[in-house]
């Protein structure tokens, strides 16, 4: 946008003068840290970055990033981001919001942003609870969740965000956990560079209303048995000493202990270009399976909606060259009164 060379950014350059008002210990801080690192390393000017959010604790995010930002209304961040991206495709556009915002009130906008392959970057901060309204169950809460609004336990089955992403045709699908800032930074960074919608689910701890919800996947003593780091083209192994793996049996998968008859050659190889495989990964839940972290799926070849629109506009302009507004307004069915 400018011929002056790109400034050297550091993560702290993206801090604003606003006090960060999340509860101390909230998982959102880690995402903010990761995001500043991502922005510093993108090679994109600060003024070309736009953060968009809906409503909820996570949706305060734009106020804390020294870029352009819009804190919109509940659930509508993907639609707002769509308008920005279609008006100015040169901008790098983020949507950062929570599970209630993106999957409940805004579920419709999320799936349609994903299916269009709009080149925007959606970061879902999933804490499985409504925090800002002080602790009601969310669309990702487990069945039987006891909250203020469900004193006898919630009745509805949770939504599976990454299965929704797969079904919606999202072209970059990844998952991480809030405490793993390094991995989160890498996954978001790759998602931003991906041409098309990137959807990154972050397991995020709400330490006030749903503390420890993700501890099985985030804590040192439990995470190795309950998560699996995906690597494209590599066998799917997990456990503290990589002693366990995932094996395909017919059209099902199972957890196996390595050693004896079972070697790494027997294990399922992660293929991030395989959509069916991605769906399978989205169905793996603890305690039966380790929950995959990393890139579930990436298809860099699908055209983006914004590129298609740009090409269509250019094509029409070429074909209609020379048409004047006056001739359009006059039409081709006129008569003269003398």
């Amino acid at each position, binding site marked *: 946008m400018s011929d002056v060379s790109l400034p050297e950014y550091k993560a702290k350059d993206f801090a604003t003068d606003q006090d960060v008002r999340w509860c101390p210990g909230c998982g959102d801080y880690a995402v903010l840290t990761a995001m500043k690192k991502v922005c510093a390393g993108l090679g994109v000017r600060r003024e070309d970055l736009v953060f968009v959010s809906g409503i909820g604790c996570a949706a305060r995010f734009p106020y804390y990033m020294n870029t352009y930002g819009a804190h919109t209304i509940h659930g509508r961040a993907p639609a707002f981001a769509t308008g920005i991206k279609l008006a100015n495709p040169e901008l790098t556009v983020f949507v950062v919001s929570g599970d209630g915002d993106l999957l409940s009130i805004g579920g*419709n906008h999320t799936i349609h942003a994903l299916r269009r392959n709009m080149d925007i970057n959606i970061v879902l901060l999933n804490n499985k609870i409504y925090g800002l309204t002080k602790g009601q169950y969310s669309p990702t809460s487990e069945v039987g969740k006891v909250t203020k609004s469900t004193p006898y336990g919630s009745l509805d089955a949770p939504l599976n965000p990454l299965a929704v992403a797969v079904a919606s045709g999202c072209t970059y699908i990844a998952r991480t956990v809030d405490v793993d800032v390094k991995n989160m930074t890498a996954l978001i960074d790759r998602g931003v560079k991906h041409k098309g919608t990137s959807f990154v689910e972050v397991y995020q701890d709400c330490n006030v209303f749903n503390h420890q919800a993700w501890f099985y996947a985030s804590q040192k003593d439990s995470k190795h048995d309950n998560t699996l780091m995906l690597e494209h083209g590599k066998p799917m192994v997990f456990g503290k000493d990589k002693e366990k793996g995932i094996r395909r049996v017919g059209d099902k998968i199972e957890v196996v202990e390595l050693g004896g008859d079972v070697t790494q050659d027997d294990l399922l190889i992660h293929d991030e270009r395989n959509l069916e495989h991605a769906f399978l990964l989205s169905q793996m839940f603890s305690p039966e399976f380790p929950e995959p972290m990393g890139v579930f799926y990436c298809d860099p070849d699908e055209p983006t909606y914004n590129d298609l629109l740009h090409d269509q506009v250019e094509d029409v302009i070429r074909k209609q060259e020379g048409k004047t507004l006056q001739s359009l307004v006059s039409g081709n069915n*006129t008569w003269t009164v003398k």
Partner: protein
Amino acid sequence: MTSSDQTSKSTELTSVSVRFCGDSGDGMQLTGSHFTDLVAFAGNDFTTAPDFPAEIRAPRGTLFGVSGYQIQFSSNDIHTPGDAVNALVAMNPAGFKSNLQTVEEGGIIIVNEDEFDKGNLKKCGYEEGYNPLDDEVINSTYNICKVPISRLTRESLIKEDEDVSVKDVDRCRNMFALGIIAWLFSSDIEPTIEKITHYFGVVKNKKHIAELNSRAIKAGYFFGETAELFPARYQVAPADHEPGEYRRISGNEALVLGMATAVEKVGKPMFYASYPITPASDVLHGLARLKHFGIRTFQAEDEIAAVVSAIGASFAGHIGVTGTSGPGLALKTEAVGLATMMELPLVVINVQRAGPATGMPTKSEQSDLLQSMFGRSGECPVIVIAASSPGDCFFMAIEAVRLACRAMCPVIFLSEGSLGNAAEPWMIPDIASIPDIEVSHPVSDGEPFMPYQRDEHGNRPWAVPGTAGLEHRIGGLEKEDVTGNVCYDNANHALMTKQRADKIQKLQDIIPELEVHGDSDTLVLGWGSTKGSILAAVAMLEERGVNVATAHLNYINPFPKNLGDVLSKFKRVIIPEINTGQLRMLIRSEFLVDAIGINNCSGRSFYVNELADEIHQVLEGVQS
């Protein structure tokens, strides 16, 4: 029909109202549209009104599947499609039954008698053994012309040595009927034949269909000439239009062209996001074709996504526009509030329809004035403007963009189904003579950027992402004055609430004052589509020796600066509306004027004589 002159050949009339009706698959809209072309080329003034069912192809022959098209054409200046119909074309018994009451006593009714068989009569609820065409009362009330249109069309088009499909032939019945009407009203059918030949022959590459349709219209015309069905032939002289180049235009077409013109005048691209809804979809269809005029359209997943993406586009520096009808506006409510808080330009087009809820999508109503004014959470003023004729939609579309950019504020632009779909002759404007719309975007001066620092008109700067040094965050939370930071301070909220309202009131300085026509102690005040009916009714009253003054509002928020003065000069104010009194409520509350309403909430425009009578009654009531 009002007759002014007798000639040996044809009777001269000043105004004629014709209605075509039949099954929704009978091509009645097309027939009406072709006939409109003929009267337009003949130089008549005209107003049209389609009347179609919501069902796309209702079962044939049913009452709810009847589609109608009414046109009034005249040698005078006219503003409505006419009250009672002078000539009705009914292609089937259902059309006949559901439109009979629209025909004036003694009016001509041309029916396709072939369709009045047992089955079709039963479908629309006539008792067995009864055929309305044989009814003595009906025959003595109307001038019924029974024409075997189905049979005659086949006989004219199917020749022994030609291989044509009967289905294609039957589809030409409407053209046969058009030929009869064209003969009856002395219209030259050549322009329609040319158009059909071009459309089917060249555009669709179906020469045989072009040929069949042309032959059908000629056959109908010659039938009219030779059959001596009608006691006389009629003629309407050209209207005394101002010299210039004209086209025919509907409100939705005018709106589309107005938006394209606004884009050129503002020098910025437009982003139009919409979700299909009757009767506003034609605006989306029209704008979708104009990518080469700086317009990008986006069919969103729902009404909310449409308005929100338009606001996003405005944030990014485009002119964000969304279009809908009443129920869609209800869904957009919260987002309009967001644009009000963010203080970004936004145009929301509402082509109103009869409500509430789904209501009557194909019927018109001035349904949403109060929704537009107040239908949001909190103290949330927006600019509200309304178009008063199909052609006026062009100019008000440009106004909508101008005011939205000027005040950094949403504009709700009210059109109506009866404007959107109605057509009238329109003198083509000279685009070059339309003034530019001024917009500026700030650049950094090195100082910290203050997104809510207001200019002398009370408007904040429109800083666009991509501009270095102006990075800022805005949102739906209350803003601190000047800095735009989130702020819950009591005094600040009071100040911001006032500022959001004041900047809209300040627009009074750049909108036209209200014009009053006529000299009387009674003012008839209208807004929107009622302009045509009011003018015609007032002219009718003048003929009766009753004078009233008129004024018409295009700007509702803010009102024109002189409205209070105008109202204070009249003893009584009458407000006709196609609702139960929404403008009346505003006028009463704002100016403490005891305005009298004349209200019609039946899904159609006022009939001129009905409105004239009601105004007359109000005046007589006051005198007695």
